[in-house]
């Protein structure tokens, strides 16, 4: 039946080769320096783990057990001092400009010791990705340089992303659900800005962040068509912290409720709104999904990396236990069943890692920051002294023309095909790697018996921490549906998703 078909036609058949082997395309296009950057970043993360995370992880968790309102300011300052909060801010916005491909391997490293500390570092880049996704270079430049200044001064200036609402968790991440969602966060246009009312929940790093990048809706009856995004400082009038959640795990990373009560947001702090969206190529609803996808395409593989991290951490604790324990009078490490189990756990961590590394290739090709992997720009930015960029870019980023150019390049010119592939793979990594993560944690606790349930042996903490990974950044159920929508449904055009 394939007679007469050209090779390219054959490769276009589902599953399209471009959909299933993204790394094949990526490797040749990837600047050679990326590999060295990943090595350096991972080495630094391992040094951080040995120096800070491992010695403190259990103590922090215990502290939060005792006092759920405890805020780990000292640890935030320590992460800030190590430079992790500015490492992946592009140089044009004043950061160190490390290649984005090195971020999620670092997240794995952190989470292989403590997913709470990993999130305390990593979720900064969730907030940042919400900020970036509207491609407002002026405000992005302003806030990123605040973060850089926070590192210089030793007073951390963190960014939180505010999306989830009490009545809208899954709904807030998919426009096909959003248009029926019970969202309540209203942004009402007034002279000179907006007045915002509503509540956001489960905001990671909420209580420790200075800048809060939030979604809201200009018309609550049409949320998918009226989503807007703004930035607000924690000291703004009408911005209030509500409760800090009492979580089962990842206790080191606060999850906050944020309440807006007639909170005035000046026009200059609006990242993107209906008026600006209407000037873009896509419809408002499509743009809302594009913005959501820009964010989750970066952050979902990050959660996948957290899955790989906990899978690896649980494996390491199980291995240590096997090496130091005799069961039935024989070293556990020499018992065949234990060797088989440890091999399976090793494989689970490796498989989780493979999913996010493939995503790294996908986002490098098709994500919102693809140009950072474009070789001419990559080497140009490498060669350009920061002092020069810091003199030029704050001015350039304020120009309307710069913003328009970025929005044209990144938003209007993005191919639907590329967006679909990137979003689908992000979901794949998110649910597959986190399912593998919790699986390994379950295995470790079971394998270690009495030691497995003890806090001082760490496996139980990995298990508690791992469960959240199946929930945030879209539940694993939503991510399965998104994978179906992006990677399976094209082969079944009659399929309707979210319309059961």
């Amino acid at each position, binding site marked *: 039946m394939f007679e007469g078909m050209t090779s390219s036609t054959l490769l276009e058949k589902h599953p399209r080769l471009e959909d299933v082997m993204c790394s094949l395309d990526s490797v040749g296009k990837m600047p050679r320096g990326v590999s060295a950057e990943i090595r350096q970043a991972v080495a630094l993360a391992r040094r951080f783990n040995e120096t800070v995370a491992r010695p403190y992880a259990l103590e922090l968790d215990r502290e939060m057990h005792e006092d759920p309102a405890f805020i780990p300011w000292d640890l935030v300052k320590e992460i800030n001092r190590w430079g992790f909060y500015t490492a992946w801010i592009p140089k044009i916005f004043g950061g160190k400009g490390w290649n984005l491909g090195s971020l999620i391997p670092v997240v794995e490293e952190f989470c292989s010791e403590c997913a709470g500390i990993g999130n305390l570092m990593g979720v900064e880049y969730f907030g940042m990705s919400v900020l970036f996704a509207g491609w407002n270079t002026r405000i992005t430049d302003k806030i990123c340089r605040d973060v850089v200044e926070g590192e210089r001064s030793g007073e951390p200036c963190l960014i939180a992303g505010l999306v989830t609402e009490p009545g809208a968790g899954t709904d807030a991440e998919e426009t096909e659900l959003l248009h029926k969602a019970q969202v309540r966060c209203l942004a009402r246009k007034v002279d000179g800005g907006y007045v915002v009312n509503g509540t956001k929940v489960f905001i990671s790093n909420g209580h420790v962040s200075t800048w809060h990048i939030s979604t809201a809706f200009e018309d609550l009856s049409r949320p998918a068509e009226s989503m807007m995004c703004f930035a607000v400082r924690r000291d703004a009038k009408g911005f209030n912290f509500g409760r800090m959640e009492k979580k089962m795990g990842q206790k080191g990373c606060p999850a906050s409720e944020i309440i807006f009560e007639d909170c005035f947001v000046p026009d200059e702090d609006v990242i993107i709104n209906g008026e600006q969206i209407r000037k873009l190529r896509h419809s408002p609803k499509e743009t809302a999904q594009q913005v959501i996808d820009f964010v989750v395409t970066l952050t979902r593989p990050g959660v996948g990396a957290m899955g790989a991290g906990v899978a690896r951490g649980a494996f390491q604790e199980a291995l240590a236990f096997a090496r130091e324990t005799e069961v039935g009078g024989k070293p556990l490490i020499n018992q065949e069943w234990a060797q088989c189990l440890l091999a399976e756990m090793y494989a689970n961590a490796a498989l989780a890692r493979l999913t996010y590394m493939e995503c790294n290739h996908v986002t490098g090709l098709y994500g919102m920051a693809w140009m950072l992997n474009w070789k001419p720009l990559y080497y140009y930015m490498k060669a350009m002294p920061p002092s020069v960029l810091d003199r030029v870019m704050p001015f350039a980023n304020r120009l309307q023309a710069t913003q328009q150019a970025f929005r044209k390049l990144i938003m209007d010119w993005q191919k639907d095909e590329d967006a679909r592939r990137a979003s689908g793979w992000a979901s794949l990594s998110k649910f597959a790697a986190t399912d593998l993560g919790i699986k390994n944690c379950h295995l470790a606790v*079971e394998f270690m018996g009495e030691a497995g*349930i003890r*806090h001082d042996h760490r496996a139980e903490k990995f298990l508690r921490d791992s469960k*959240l990974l199946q929930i945030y950044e879209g539940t694993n159920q939503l991510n399965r549906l998104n994978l179906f929508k992006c990677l399976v449904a094209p082969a079944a055009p009659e399929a309707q998703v979210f319309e059961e």
Partner: protein
Amino acid sequence: MRTTISEELKMLAGMARDFAAKELVDEREEHDRFPFAPLFEDVLGKAVEVGFFAVMLPEEAGGSAEPVTALCVVLDEVCQADASLGATIFTNALAQEVIGQAGGTDKVVMIACEDGSFRQGLIAFPSYNDPGEVDHCARAARARGGYELSGGVEYVVLGGLVKRALLPAKVEGTEGYSWFLVDLDADGIDASEPVLSLGMHACPAVDLSLSAVPGALVGEEGRGGEYFEAAVDRLSAAAAAMAAGVMKGSFAEALEYSRQREQGGRLIVDWSGLRVMLADMALKAKVADMLVEKAAFAADRGELGWQLASRAAALMVGEMATVATTDGIQALGGYGYMKDYGQEKRFRDAKQIQSLMGITHMRRLQFMQRVMDGEAAW
């Protein structure tokens, strides 16, 4: 089990359900804060009064002499609300059973104190370890016509709360290990702070360090493993009942939430993907219920192969509960992960129940060994 048990056991189940509803549900989160909040000693006192700690104990020892099915019924109901009390009941029952197997029932006199104290009557026990596998045994030396225990025993459940513990120790010069009753108020005992654990915070454990502490031998020297294995045979059904109870609690909470929470403009229970997840939970709970009932009845009637039936129930129901309670959180999304609902606690408790009486893989290997040795498997 509610539909098939006798009228007498139905009354017991109803009493346990009412007790759980009245004493456990409302304060579950606060009770779970131990050791960073006070222990629910008043609840333990009331549990003593209603006889939860003497269900299977012979009448001459102050117990109700009920069959293991009765213990399963109580644990099922209690663990639907809060497995911490269930684990306390279980640990004490396991210690009593080991002593019973050693023919030392006279050493277990359940004292229902008028002041509601549980300290005198309950027995601390390392209920998450099989001392024949992971060698957390003290050393016993013959001295002054008795024995003195030295060394360490890890994770002794209730060790910081009650007066007596049943501890494993190896007598110098003999094979195997033996069980000793030890007065925890005696000189030479050093108990750690409560060990922070995955689940069942209100059923705490301590690590004990002993230095020449007098111990009363239970049964015969070197036969500790034999007594323990026989006790595990009988009490495995009870461990399965705990896991089944936790699973039922998790399902009930998930179903209730799913009938109230909307996403995408409809109740989440009406999305078929979630409904399949709920169905899987319900199926596991149903199968668990049948397994517990079968195993407990078989044990009580002494049916051929009841020992392995009991162990099979503990292993399989224990595993099912860890999966079901993981989904029990998932059904509630972010809310399931927070302390506000009972789901995160059930997830932790179910996982901890799985480790009762030793590492599951070793229990599986033991099961297989007994099958190969010719014991009736079904």
